[in-house]
Every structure is written in structure tokens, then in C-alpha cells.
């Protein structure tokens, strides 16, 4: 029972963090921007959903959609403030990283100032039912989290595979310079990318708020988990992110059972360091070639 509880918990968290990690991964590989303002987008989307639930409607799908939209809005804002002005300037990668960190600082402090330090909770999106199997009970929010995140992720990946815009984004991921030569606008595509990855962050925010609460600094831990997973899987690789999410989730479950929940982060970083020492570009990353940006 205990094992199953931890395993199911791990799967849920892996799905949510994997969603964030894939967002980080896509942003890095297509724009060359390491967006460390995801913590802010996450909290922003959470507050957006909360405001929607307070003032408009408390129906689950509507709140979810509001969160996703708020996240996409946050992503677009960060793109306009932090990416568009410097994407063609010298030393862009470091400056972009620092700019997103600065936006994160400003944004979270704004949220703190506006909403206060008390955390908020969202209404239950998936209702209050549960499925009992022999030895294990799946609650509604767990099943809903897994199903929703996998479904939306599948939709996004499918869209990237089949649509014109997705083709543009994939071209940017392969070779941004060549993509701009054949007429794919870097700025326009960057808005799509940031909108979509922001939407993914918003989704993760709403889903995670079923377990944790929404607070101005609540986005930090999910962001660090997402970054770790993206790093471990290889920045720029969706498949690697999925594998890394599973590996780290497994590690979390095993550590909780065997040593104790306190040491989860320690073992997680040991695992990440070992993986990175063996493969410096992550599990699915190319060994020699980093993105030249």
C-alpha cells in the first residue's frame, strides 16, 4: 500500500515536472534561451487561475484553461521583455539567462506585493471521486493529473509534428541560422515557442496546485525539478526529458522507501551528477555538439 502510494505519487509528479522540463527543453533548443523565469510563469499562471476561479467560474476545465492561458501570456511577456531586445546582441546566452533571472526576481516580488505572502488554493478540478484497485486507491486528482498532462503534451507534440508552425519551430531547433535564411522569422517563432512553453508551465501550475498551494515563490521548486530533468535528459531532447523524468521519479520513489524523504534531493543530485559525468550533454543529448548560439 505504502509502496503503491509512493509510486503513484511519483508518476504524477514525474508527469507534471516532465511537462515543465519539455517546455524548458524546447525553449532552449529552438531559441537558445535558458528561461529561468519559469518559476514566475508558474506562479503567475497559478494566480491567473485563482483569480479566474474567484471572479468568473469554478468549473474545472475553465480554471485549467485560464491557467494555461495565463501561463501563455506570461511566456509571451517574457519573450517580449527578455528575448526580443537581446536575441541578436553579443553574449546573448549569458545575458538571456540573467535577464530571465531578473524578470523572475521582479515578477515574484510583484506577485508578493500584489497578492501578499499567504498561499492560495484552487478548487478541485477533477472532482472528488476515486478508483479502488486491489491494494491501491487512485484518487481523482492523480488520475486527472496524469491523463491531462499526458494528453496535452501529446497534443502539443502532435501539433509540432504536423503543423506549419510546428515545422518552423522544429527547423529552428535544428539550425536557427539556416531557419532564418529560409524565411522563418526568429521573432515571430519565438512568440509561438514562448506562448506554448508558457502554456505548458501554466498547465503544470494548475495541476500541481491540486497537491501544493499557490504562492509567489512556489514556482521555484518545480522549476528546479524541471531544469534538472531537462538537464539530465539532454537540453533540447523531448525523448531524453521523458526518460529522465522516469529515472528521477524512480529514484525519488526508491529513496523515499529505502532511506527517507529527506534525502530525496541529495540522491537526486548524485544521480544527476553521475549521469552528467558519464554523458556531459545529458541522456539523449549529442555528445560533442552543444547548441551554438
Amino acid at each position: 500500500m505504502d509502496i503503491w502510494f509512493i509510486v503513484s505519487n511519483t508518476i504524477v509528479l514525474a508527469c507534471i515536472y516532465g511537462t515543465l522540463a519539455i517546455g524548458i527543453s524546447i525553449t532552449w533548443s529552438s531559441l537558445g534561451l535558458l528561461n529561468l523565469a519559469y518559476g514566475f510563469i508558474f506562479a503567475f499562471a497559478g494566480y491567473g487561475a485563482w483569480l479566474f476561479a474567484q471572479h468568473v467560474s469554478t468549473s474545472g476545465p475553465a480554471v485549467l484553461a485560464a491557467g494555461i492561458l495565463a501561463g501563455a501570456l506570461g511566456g509571451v511577456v517574457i519573450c517580449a521583455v527578455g528575448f526580443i531586445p537581446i536575441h541578436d546582441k553579443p553574449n546573448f546566452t549569458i545575458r538571456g539567462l540573467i535577464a530571465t533571472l531578473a524578470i523572475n526576481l521582479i515578477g515574484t516580488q510583484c506577485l508578493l506585493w500584489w497578492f501578499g505572502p499567504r498561499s492560495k488554493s484552487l478548487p478541485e478540478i477533477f472532482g472528488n471521486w476515486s478508483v479502488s484497485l486491489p491494494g491501491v486507491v487512485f484518487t481523482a486528482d492523480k488520475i486527472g493529473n496524469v491523463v491531462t498532462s499526458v494528453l496535452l503534451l501529446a497534443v502539443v507534440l502532435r501539433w509540432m509534428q504536423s503543423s506549419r508552425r510546428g515545422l518552423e519551430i522544429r527547423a529552428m531547433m535544428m539550425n536557427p541560422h539556416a531557419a532564418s535564411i529560409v524565411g522563418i522569422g526568429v521573432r515571430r517563432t519565438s512568440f509561438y515557442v514562448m506562448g506554448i512553453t508558457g502554456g505548458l508551465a501554466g498547465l503544470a501550475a494548475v495541476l500541481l496546485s491540486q497537491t501544493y498551494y499557490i504562492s509567489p515563490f512556489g514556482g521555484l521548486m518545480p522549476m528546479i525539478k524541471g531544469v534538472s530533468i531537462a538537464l539530465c535528459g539532454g537540453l533540447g531532447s523531448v525523448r531524453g526529458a521523458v526518460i529522465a523524468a522516469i529515472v528521477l521519479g524512480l529514484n525519488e520513489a526508491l529513496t523515499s522507501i529505502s532511506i527517507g524523504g529527506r534525502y530525496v534531493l541529495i540522491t537526486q543530485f548524485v544521480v544527476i551528477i553521475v549521469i552528467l559525468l558519464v554523458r556531459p550533454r545529458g541522456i539523449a543529448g549529442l555528445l560533442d555538439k552543444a547548441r551554438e548560439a
Partner: protein
Amino acid sequence: MSIDSGIKWRNPLFVWGGKRDVEELPTIPFRSHKEVWERTRRSTTKLNPVGRLRYYYKWPGHGATMWNRLRYWPTRRRVLRVRGEYNPKTLRAEKTIVDKRPIWWVLGLLALAIAPLFTPGDLQNTLLTAGATFGIYAAISLCWMLIMGTAGVFSLATYAVVGTAAFVTALLAVKFALPWWLLPPIGALVGLVFGGIIALPATRLDGFYYALLTLGLNELCRVYFVTSKEFGSANGGLYGARTYIPEEWSQLGQLLLAYYACFGLMLLALLLYRFVNGRRLGRILRMAPEKREAFAEATGVNFRQARVWVFLVSSAALGFIGGFYTSNFGGVAFSIFNFDTVLLGLAMLVIGGVGRAEGAVVGTLIVVFFDQVLNTWGPARFMIIGLIMLLVVLYLRNGLFGIKAQFRAWRDKKKSERRSTRAEKGGELLPEEATETEDKSVIYQRRHDKMTRDHLKTLVSPEIIEEHRHSLNGQHSEALERLLIYFRTRPQVEKYAIMAVERFEGYRIVALSGHRGVAPRVVEDRIYATPDEACHGVFMRRVQDLLES
């Protein structure tokens, strides 16, 4: 232009009755050469300054003082970089201070040293506390600058090292009642061990992979220390270590002691920065900047080892600072592991400019001012710091201290743009060519030549050609004389000459090579019957060349 323009030229020598002299010949109206001059000089282009001016104050110096240099004993290092030179115009001996930064450093540090004397009474408490915090954070920033600027490792785990050292020393101090002076060395040891552990992935990973990893490590430390019972998870930190500040002193005395102790810590950090960055390790690493590591490696520079050395040295120094932190505040709070602390620390480096000691110190001063002195503003002060950081990153290439270089680069770009807009004028020598020509008289000679040709082109007319055919020698009209004088003064290379194919029967035009031993080149097949015809043929060729130039 027709032959019969009505204007006649009267030969003044006609009365002497020379052979083939004619009294009057049709000619063209007088055209002043000044027209071309005026036209060339008149310019509608906006003239922008294109030169390079750098103003340095020229100190007088002569004889013995010219070469007198102040040096740090016992090294041969100079305190100030002074250039002695002779003014090329006045031939006076002059001294120029090339690098004024040491002067600014001394003035700034002096100001910090005497600042407590000038603090207003009602703000004394706040300002002195902020000053002490500034000293500690400046020392941390300097060590971080060594890691980020000198070693080029984008590490975000600096505050994790400091915090870990501070917590470990605080725990030891509380448990074993250690004296305060033992804490910094123990902290240095802890920092060295921690640095050694996190230097391990730094050798394999580069750039952002490492930044992300260390970001996670910082969070790991925070969670570990916050949740562990030994480190006082209940009361927001671990306090109770002995400090170096005597209890029996007055409050002002305690504050002043803390201020000067932290100031001394900053001076130590500056010394460390100087010794690491300005000596062998720094030189080696400056050889291997980002994206040029392969070249450095090929030339035999072991930059990886140098990086790890710098990393270890700075980690030990950070640990030392952590120990000092504990012995200064009597303990340490968990807030040192906060993500916001890391962000503020990064803001200190970024605002000043990565890779310079002055950037670290001034950036720290700015951030600490907003963070500590204006602490009644609440979250707004973080927003201001974030905003400054964002603006600096968006608009400045390398922080506040990079403004000078960036401005110069921008000005040079503008100047070269202006130079290229001036290329249409004159057109004899391209502006870039003109600035690089050693002999500047060439520029003016070519310019004059062009104006002369422009004027002479206006003189060529059927009347003049007819006149030349009529009288090769003797007195010519003014216009023809000008043309002929110009033709005669051309250089030997490619100058036309007449070659006798057969005496008194056949002549042809050749062009001289201008070089001894190289035969003239035949320019046309036509054979002229008389020397006069050939002479006129040469004239016609020259006129054609003139009109084509």
C-alpha cells in the same frame, strides 16, 4: 560647340612675321579654373567629425623626473602606469597617466575607510550595519567574480558554499564552544571540501549545464539545512556562536568594530583577487576565453587545471568568509540559501560588470544600498534591484564598467558610417585609404590633379584642336597652352612618344614603359607621313585620355 563662335584669339607675335603664323584664330570663351575650384570646395554634405580624440592630461616632466617611476617594494611593479613622451609639436617632455584606476581605487577605499565619521547621527545604526554587510557581501562577490570572471565557470552555488561553511562552523562553535578566531579557518576547510566536491562536475560540464546544476545544488542545500534538526530548523537559523565583538563595548563601538572588520575582510578579498587574477593563473585563463579553449589547449595551456585551481582557491576563500560571517553575526539564518539571495548576489556582479574587481565592489554597493538602507520599502526594493539588473543586461554589454568600452565601440561605428557617407565627395582617395596613407601630400596632389583635369576638360573644343593642328609650335592661345602644359608634366610611365619607322617617311605613336630596358609599347597601327602629323596624333590621344579620365 561650333567652329564659328565668333570669338577670336589674336596672336601677339604675328607682327614678327614668323613662318605659318596667323593673325587671328577662332577660339573659345575664357573659362576660369577657379570655377572648378569653387565647385569642388562647395559641399552640401553634412560634415561630421571622423577623427579620434582622447583627452589625457599631460603632466610636465623633464630630465630625471621623466623616467622616475614609483614601484611596489620589493617587486618591480609600478604603482601607476605612466608613459613618458616628447610632444611632437612642442618637443616638450610630458607624462601621461595611462591607467588611472589605481587612483580611483585609493580614493574609493579611503572614502569607505573614513565614511563612519560622516554618517548622520539618526542613520548611524542603519548605515554602519549596512556597511558591515556590504564588506561581507563585497568579499563574497569578489570571490564569485574570480569563479565567474577569471575561471569562466558559471557557478550559482556560491552562497551554498558560504552558507554551508557558516552553518557548519556555527554548529561546531555552539557544540564545542570554539573561540571566534577558529571559525574562519574551519570555514575555509569546509569551503575547500565543498568546492572540491562541486568542482568535480565542473571539469566535464560547460557553461549552462553547470549553471543549472549549481542552481539545483543551492536548493538542495537549502532543503537539507532547513529540514535537519541539528541546524535549528525550528527558529529560522542557528545562533549562539561567540563573536569577536566584545559585549562590554558601547553600541557605537561594536558597530564600528564590525564595520572595520568587514572592511578588512573586503580588503583581503581584493588582495586575493589581485593575486589570482593578476598573476599566473589569471594570465593562463585569459589565454583561454570562452570558445577559444581549443586554441589555448593546442598551445599547451592547461586551462582546465587552472580553472579547478581558481575554483578551489575561491571556494576556500568563500568558506573563510562563511566562518567570518558566523563569528560576525554570532550565527547564520536560512535565508542565505534563498533563491533571492543568489539572485541579489548575481545582480551585484551583473550590475558592476563581470570580470572586474571594481564591478563586484560597486555592484555590491548599489545592491546593498537598496537592500539594507531602504529596507522600509518592502518588496519594492527587490523590484528596483531586479529592474536595474534587467536594464543593465538588456542595454549594457558588460555592466556599468563596460559602458566606456561600449560607448567607444558605438562611437567608432558611427564614425566609420560617417566616413563611408563621405566617400562620394572628392572621390580621389577613399577615406579609409586616405587615413592609412603615410605621405599625406599624395592626398592633396591627387585632389589638385582631379580639379585640374576637370577644368581642362571644359577647354577641349574643336577650335582648340584646329589651332593645334595648324600650329604645333610657337605662340598658342591661353586654353591650348594650359592643355599642353598639363600634358607635358605627365609622368614618364605610359607617356606617348613618336617613333620613326623610316626617316622622313613613316612615323608611329608608341607609349613609353617608364622603366629602363623595357621597350616602348606600340599603341596603334597607323603610320603618319610627317612628324607634325604624328605630333598632332599624340595630342589627340592625350585629349582623348583626358576626356576619358
